[in-house]
């Protein structure tokens, strides 16, 4: 730390300026469109702490910013595998979430995740799955098989009417589930299988796009869309015939978490915020806004009826064994993945 005289000085100054300064502010760095502004106002009313929101579009953007030392954030929202990287690289502050008063509300499935033993560093935010959605009014027979094959070997009516996410990890993982190889494979032959499947699918793909997926479905631009389940719920709000598919080969299940980066300027406020977000009535607002499930018991009482009844959001129990947790791959596996992505788009 001696190499960072400026940071040390800043920290010392922050200490000297005392609690008056610390009472007022919180810098939240979150995914875009991922928390309702009204909820932040409610937090300010409850606690007197004013939240400043900044947004990012991928875990890697977050990581790059934290690695570059551009801190100044009090709370960030990494996905599970990124939590592990942050802990391993010493980028996360140990805040003992499991000792917080509202931790008792966390659902049993989420109290001891593999990426953060016993929840010392992270609190659960929202979770979801990455499957696909189709418009049942415009597919032959009104139904597609619950399989990635429906996307990777589409019937004629769907050719050129499919959109995939423009996300290296999600597209690669979908391909891996479809051809049945581990998504973190280090074997070039297995990666080749994934590439072959993606290349064979490409002529039928209208576009790779991660933004505005629900608008695209609602505007009838495509018939099927590789999609996050919350976006699928928002699709269904505008397009009643939209159906979300949990493919039987498996689909990624991810969860995002509230974490305090090392050296956060307002540590106490960050803890206050995280505890506050684990209250059912608060996290429910985040779910209502984004269409994603939360991990807090009792939150469903405060959630919209349409959300709880949508099978895309409240997963029917029979699909539970299709979920595959996301994971961080080894550098060798990541290199293979990026090669496949580049070859797919060269």
């Amino acid at each position: 730390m001696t190499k960072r005289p400026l940071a040390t000085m800043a920290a010392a100054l922050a200490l000297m300026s005392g609690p008056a300064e610390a009472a007022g502010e919180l810098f939240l760095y979150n995914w875009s469109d991922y928390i309702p502004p009204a909820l932040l106002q409610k937090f300010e009313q409850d606690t007197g702490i004013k939240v400043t929101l900044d947004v990012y579009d991928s875990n890697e953007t977050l990581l790059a910013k934290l690695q570059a030392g551009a801190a100044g954030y009090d709370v960030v929202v990494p996905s599970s595998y990124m939590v592990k990287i942050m802990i391993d690289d010493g980028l996360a502050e140990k805040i003992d979430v499991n000792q917080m008063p509202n931790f008792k509300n966390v659902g049993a499935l989420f109290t001891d995740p593999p990426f953060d033993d016993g929840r010392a560093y992270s609190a659960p935010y929202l979770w979801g799955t990455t499957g696909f959605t189709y418009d049942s009014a415009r597919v032959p027979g009104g139904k597609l098989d619950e399989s990635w094959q429906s996307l990777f070997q589409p019937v004629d009516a769907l050719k050129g009417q499919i959109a995939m996410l423009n996300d290296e990890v999600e597209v690669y993982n979908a391909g891996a589930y479809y051809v049945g190889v581990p998504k973190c494979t280090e074997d070039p032959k297995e990666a080749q299988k994934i590439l072959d499947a993606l290349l064979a699918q490409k002529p039928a793909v209208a576009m790779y796009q991660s933004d505005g997926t629900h608008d695209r479905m609602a505007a009838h631009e495509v018939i099927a869309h590789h999609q996050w389940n919350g976006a699928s719920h928002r699709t269904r709000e505008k397009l009643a015939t939209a159906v979300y598919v949990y493919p039987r080969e498996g689909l990624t299940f991810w969860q995002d978490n509230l974490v305090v980066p090392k050296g956060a300027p307002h540590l106490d406020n960050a803890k206050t915020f995280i505890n506050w977000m684990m209250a059912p009535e608060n996290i429910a607002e985040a779910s209502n806004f984004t269409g994603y499930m939360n991990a807090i018991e009792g939150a469903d009482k405060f959630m919209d009826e349409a959300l709880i009844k949508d099978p895309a959001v409240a997963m029917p129990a029979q699909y539970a064994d299709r979920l595959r947790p996301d994971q961080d791959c080894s550098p060798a596996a990541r290199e293979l993945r990026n090669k496949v992505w580049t070859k797919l788009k060269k």
Partner: protein
Amino acid sequence: MRARSGQAWLILPASLVIILFMLLPLGLMAYVSILEKGLNGGVVWGSHTTEAYLSFAFERDLDDSLVLNTDYLQIFARSFGLSAITTILCLLLSLPTAFYMALQPERTRNGLIFLVTIPFWTNLLVRNYAWILLLRNGGLIDGLLRDAGLSSGSLNLLYSNTAIVLGLTYTFLPFMVLPIYASLEKLDVRLVEAAFDLGANRWQALRRVVLPLAMPGIVAGCILVFVPALGAYVTPELLGGGKSLMIGNLIQGQFGSARNWPFGAALAFALLAIVLLAMLVYLLRFRQAPAGAAP
């Protein structure tokens, strides 16, 4: 002498900005490109390697030998191709436009320049989204043609290389019109009249008098279009549907999901080198204004 040193001060703020915000970051980037990549992204400071530059054209085989890999070269080639087509289209559209503008009375000219610059008032992202609404199946163009009975079914205009070129041409057109206009505006009409008097027909007058005089503007316009088009990021992503990468998207991916900063930096440098080369050619060729352009 005093006047001179006084003038030197004038350029100090600009020099500082260039050193602080361009040369320093560029130097940092150059350094990152020869570092080893970190396990979870970032770089390992102090550990040097040329791997990033090698992986531009080669990849390590299983036995660690280098084999040729043309993936990245193909992406560069596509970027160059699309940028070249964009430049040519811009040139074809701009020449007559700029010529027309230069021939108008002064007041009209100012109005026309104003019209050319209007697109700059809107954010690039918004303009690209507007093209999506225009081009997409069931969008304005598709719908109109179908209603007019000129096409049946979907045109599939959007999410193709055609859409990328269209978007780039639209975006960069003013960069071509304005320099050509600037050089044509100074054109001495009497030279054209003299050409006619000496028996030149319209084509000859255009080719041998007007075009040479407009050449500095044409070259400047071509560079102003070609270079930014090479690094375009938003347009290929939105209008190309993310189906084929251009250099900008490739570089972004290296800093994002690939977590390979050195390679991203090396790619950026390869692009910079090519751009500098183009500028060098321009400077050598047009160090002096072509004969006849000087008053």
